[in-house]
Each structure stands twice: as C-alpha cells, then as structure tokens.
C-alpha cells in the first residue's frame, strides 16, 4: 500500500466519519439530549459547551486504579470501546454511501456495537468492587434482553430491501418511501432497544445511581472514565445514524452539504424520540426489563418480519 492510498483511509478513521466527527457530534448530541430533557422537565439545562468542559475536566483528573483489579485490562477497556464504535461508523452512510460498504455490513455493525457493551461488563467485573460487580452482571443480563429485539427489528427492513448492505437499504427506502410507513412497529422496537443499548431511562439499570452508585463504572475515574463516557456518546451517534439509515431512508437521496444537513436533522430527530422516552418514564427493574423485551418486543419484531415478507411476496406477484 502506498502512502497516497493509506492517507485517505487514515483520515476516514481519524477524522471523518471516524473519531473527530463522532466525538464532536457525540458531545453535541449529549448536550442536545441534556438540554431537551431539561426543557421538558421545566429546567434551564446546561450551556452548549458543558459536555466538552466535562470531558476536558475528566481528562485532566487523576486516574485511580484499584489494587485488586487486573491493571492492564482495566486501563485498556475504554480504548477498546472507542475503537469498536469508530470502526462501526465507517459502515454507516453519512452524506452519501458509507466509506466501506459491502454485503453483510449490517451484521458487522451490530456485532461491533456489541463490543462496547462487553467492555462495560468486563470493566465492572475487573473492578472487583461489589457495586461494580453487580453493575457488570446487570450489563450482561440487559445485553441478552435487548440484543435479540434489536437484531430482529433490523432484519425486517433488510428482508424487504433484499440486501444486507446498510447503504442499499437506505437507498431502497429512498426510492420506495411509502414502505417506511410499514416499518413503524420495527422502528419503535429499535428505539426502545437502542435505549437499552445506550443504558438510558427506562433501561439505565446497570448504573442506577440510587441502587448501585456508579454501576460498572464505579471504580473508574479521570481519563479512563472520560473515554468511557465519550464511547457512550459516540455510540449514540452511531445508533441514531443506524436507525436513520435502516428505517428512515438515510439522506433521502440528497448529496453533499445538503445530504449532510439531512443526516444531522434526521439523527437529531431520532435523538429527540430517545429523549422523549427518557423523560416520560421511570427506571424498571432488571427482571421486568427482560420480561418486557422477550414477551413484547421480540414478538412485535417477528410480526414486523412477517409483514415485510408479506409485502415482498405481494410485490413480486
């Protein structure tokens, strides 16, 4: 590989749509989330630079590693989480087709997005403190609850579009806009499952502060905690972009600056829905969440898949 071809690849990973873009937009979305929630709750909310200030403050603080834990793993985990999220961003269309687009990238993204959750579990488990251990167990239990509905909800649109390529699914819905209406149940399930993935109310069970203080991150501090928080923010961007591409037709055929603007507006709209879910309810218990995901969300997804298969056969005839 020559330097010429290596350079753009590096820019993709480091700048756009990789680390820098994800971090900047992730921090913006964190502010957007906090501000919207504040307005809905009749509060003022933080100024726009608050997430940046929080991150800078955390980066400057001392890192304390518990004596009893596995030091190397404890320190490496936040970077694994960030790397997995940044890699998954490369396969998601931002203003045009994704940087790396191939048949089956949908499956790859789903698996890459599981890695941060696994690092959260390992982070809690390797901390060895009681609160973190309980948090870690909850992370894993929660993973088994929301992961299946999330995957099932994404299969429906893929079957309808007849492809495993995210960019092609977005393209399909751009040209067949009316089919988007049939995806509303799947979209709702995906939003709820995403809420579980991002560990937000009503599924912020792993780090429920009234019960287990900081949950899996209890022992984390300083730079390492900052990177974990950043990974969660980035995951929100990727999650919103994924929902946008799969259920809402991506950029709707717009290119360049206009396409980018459409992307921003639509991901913010997805985040708006996530905020709405967050402020409308309280936290549920882990057993209630597992029951809800398997008894309500999973069957709903199966119904969605059946509907999509039905539409597809109708179309072929």
């Amino acid at each position, binding site marked *: 590989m020559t330097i010429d071809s290596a350079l753009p690849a590096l820019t993709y990973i480091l700048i756009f749509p990789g680390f820098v873009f994800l971090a900047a937009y992730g921090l913006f979305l964190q502010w957007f989330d906090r501000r919207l*929630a504040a307005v*809905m*709750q*009749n*509060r003022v909310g933080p100024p726009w630079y608050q997430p940046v200030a929080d991150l800078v403050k955390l980066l400057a603080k001392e890192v304390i590693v518990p004596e009893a834990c596995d030091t190397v793993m404890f320190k490496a985990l936040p970077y694994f989480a960030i790397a997995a999220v940044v890699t998954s961003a490369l396969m998601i269309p931002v203003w045009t087709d994704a940087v790396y687009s191939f048949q089956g990238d949908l499956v790859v993204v789903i698996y890459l997005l599981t890695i941060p959750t696994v690092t959260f579990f390992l982070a809690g488990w390797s901390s060895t403190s*009681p*609160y973190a*251990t*309980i948090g870690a*167990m909850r992370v894993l239990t929660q993973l088994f609850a929301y992961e299946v509905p999330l995957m099932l909800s994404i299969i429906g649109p893929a079957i309808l579009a007849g492809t495993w390529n995210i960019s092609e699914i977005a393209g399909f819905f751009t040209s067949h806009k009316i089919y988007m209406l049939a995806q509303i149940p799947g979209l709702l399930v995906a939003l709820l499952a995403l809420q579980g993935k991002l560990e937000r*109310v*009503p599924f*912020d*069970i792993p780090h*429920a*502060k*009234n*019960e*287990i*203080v900081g949950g899996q991150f209890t022992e984390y501090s300083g730079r390492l905690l900052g990177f974990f928080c950043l990974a969660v923010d980035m995951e929100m961007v990727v999650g919103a972009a994924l929902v946008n591409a799969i259920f809402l037709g991506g950029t709707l055929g717009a290119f360049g600056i206009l396409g980018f603007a459409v992307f921003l507006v639509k991901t913010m709209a997805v985040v708006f829905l996530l905020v709405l879910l967050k*402020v*409308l*309810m*309280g*936290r*549920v*218990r*882990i*057993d*209630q969440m597992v029951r809800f995901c398997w008894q309500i969300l999973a069957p709903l997804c199966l119904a969605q898949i059946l509907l999509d298969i039905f539409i597809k056969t109708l179309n072929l005839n």
Partner: protein
Amino acid sequence: MSKMTIPLGPQHPALKEPVNFTLVLEGEQITGSAVNLGYNHRGVEKAAENRTFLQDIYLIERICGICSHSHTTCYVTCVEEIAKAEVPERAKAIRTLVGELERVHSHLLWLGIAGYEMGFETLFMYTWRDREQVLDCLELVSGNRVHYGINTIGGVRRDITPGQKTEILKRLAILEERTKYYVKLGTEEATVLARTQNVGLLPHDIALERGAVGPTARASNVKRDVRKDAPYLIYDKLDFNLITHNTNDVFGRLVVRVLELVESYKMIRQILNYLPEGPIAVKVPAKIGPGEAVNRYEAPRGEDIHYVKANGTDKPERAKVRAPTMANYPSVSYMLDGGYLADVPMVIAAIDPCMSCTDRAMVYNTKTDKVQIYGWDELRKYGIEQYKKKGVDFSKL
C-alpha cells in the same frame, strides 16, 4: 450464586442523610439486612436542658428541616400544659394552618424523592417546582421557607391578614390542579406501577406488631392518625377523611400521601374560613412548673411524641423526643427481606425517613454484655480521645 454483602450508606446516592443498611445479596435478591444508626446523633435533648423554654423552641425546630413545625408545636403544647396557659383559638387555628401547609410541602417533597428513587426524574422536577407554591405560602405567613419560627409559648408570633388569605387561596387552586395530575400519574403511569406495586410489603398485622406510624401504617390499612384519634389544636372542628389503603405496598403509601394532599387542601380552606377573631398569644411566665407533660402530634411522617419535665426554673429538667422515623425503622427491615436490590431505595424512601431527627446513640460493651451510661463530661472526654486515635486533636476547642 455466592452470597455478597454490600453496604448501603452511610454515604450513598439514594440516602440524603447518614444511616447504614447492610444487605446480604444472593444475585439481585436480598436474604438479610441490618439497620445501623448513630452516624449523626446531635444531642438535641441534652442541649435543650441547658437552654430556656423559649430558646428551646428554636433548638427543637432544628430537629427536622421538613417537619420543623410539628416538633415545635408538640413541644410548646407540652410547655403550655405545664404552665396551664390557655392558648387563644386564633393562635390554634394559625398553628393548624401552618401544620397543614407543612404537610403539603412534606408530601410533595416525598413524591419527588420517590420519583427520583425510581429513576423518574421528570416527576421529581415537576413536584419540586410545584412545591415552591406552598413554600411561598409559608414564607408569606411566617417569613421563612423552612424553619417558620411561628410558634411561641402561649400562641403564635405572627397574625394572618386578609391579603395573605386571598394569596394562599390563589396558590391553593394551582396546587389542587397539579395534585389531580399527580393522582392520575401515580395511579396510571406504567413504570410507576411496575416499581411500586407489590414492593416492600407490610401486612396489616405486621404493621401493628412493629408499631408502624403515619402513612406507612395507613397504607397497611391501620386506621391510625392522631388528628382523628386524639384531636389537638382545632382538628376536632375540621371535616376531613382518614385516608387508608389496603395494598400494603409502596404503591399504597404513594396513594395515601397523594390523597392526604387533597385532604390537606380541604382543611386549609376550612381553617382560612374559620379563623376566629381575637388575640394571637397570651403571656406565659418564664419560670414554669414543677410538672411534666407528654404530647402527641401527627407529623407528615407519622406520630411525633414529645415529653417535657419542668422543675420550677426557666429551663426544662428533661426534654424527650420520639420522631416518627424511629417507629418505622423496625418495619423497614421486614420490608427489605426477600425483596430485590433494585427496590431497596424505594422501600427505604417509602417510610419517608428522617435519619438525623431520629438518631440514637448507645455505648454497648460486647465483652461484658452491658450498656454503659456516660455523663456529659465523660462523653466529651471519650470523644476527644476517640478522635486523637485517628490523628485529630479537638482538646483545644
């Protein structure tokens, strides 16, 4: 799965005051629990013996930041009983009014805390915003938001003007409107129901056996309310219902408190319309007694008991306080056993605990199996030595 012991407190996000619950967990399930008190014993009773009856009002007001009026009213009633002072009817009405406004502010505060403990922050923000209305009323009446300082021996310190009356009625209308919304929210919202129903069960007979008081007892269908059982102030002239619920769980306690809000609004209207003409205080001599009196008062958290003994000087010989939280602690350990870790904050919050109001300290020698009694000077010496061992020297203070 192996058993795990986790501490909840004395410093914990779910607790606003220092107390420790040691929980033995099997997975998410609790198999054993213990309550440890004594982190914030302030020696209020002892301090009360060194102050005059009048000064003690302001000390006793500071037992609790939320039910401050309950404690002072209970205390001054004891003192007036010993002094055989006849409190004017108007003063009694004003005391009742502030007492009911205090109940409204305490129950709204509790509703917010309950929302916070179940992760429902919107409920927390909403109730605390609306609570400002009643705090404004209290400020209007007494000049203060939290420690009203309206009681004095023989009556009250401030009168209520017709202007204040219309202002309170105006704010009451807003609160009534909002409370309708909370009744609807508390009984219909899915996550609130999921987190409160069948959580922290306290059956009727256990509630009686463990001596639960206040809304905790009433949610277990125990008809226990000092305002009805032994009416004090002007409660015998007011028309209100005793709210009980039969679900025995946190949901019942929520419903009882929210419906008590509605009853309190009703009472505040009645008091404002009743308000007899006349003086607001009578003169009581500074030196009282000898004699003793014990009184009960229905604080927002339950039955509050004060005992005062006077010996003819201007200082009490003994003042004794039993805050309602003390009576509810035995029920907490029953409610925690067998529950889930996720429900612990809800169960503890459901008794509306006030740790510092109720704190007790006792020196127990495990070797000789005896309780040791310390005098004031001995205790001071013991404290200084204890901290010297930790490297802090207080002996020069």
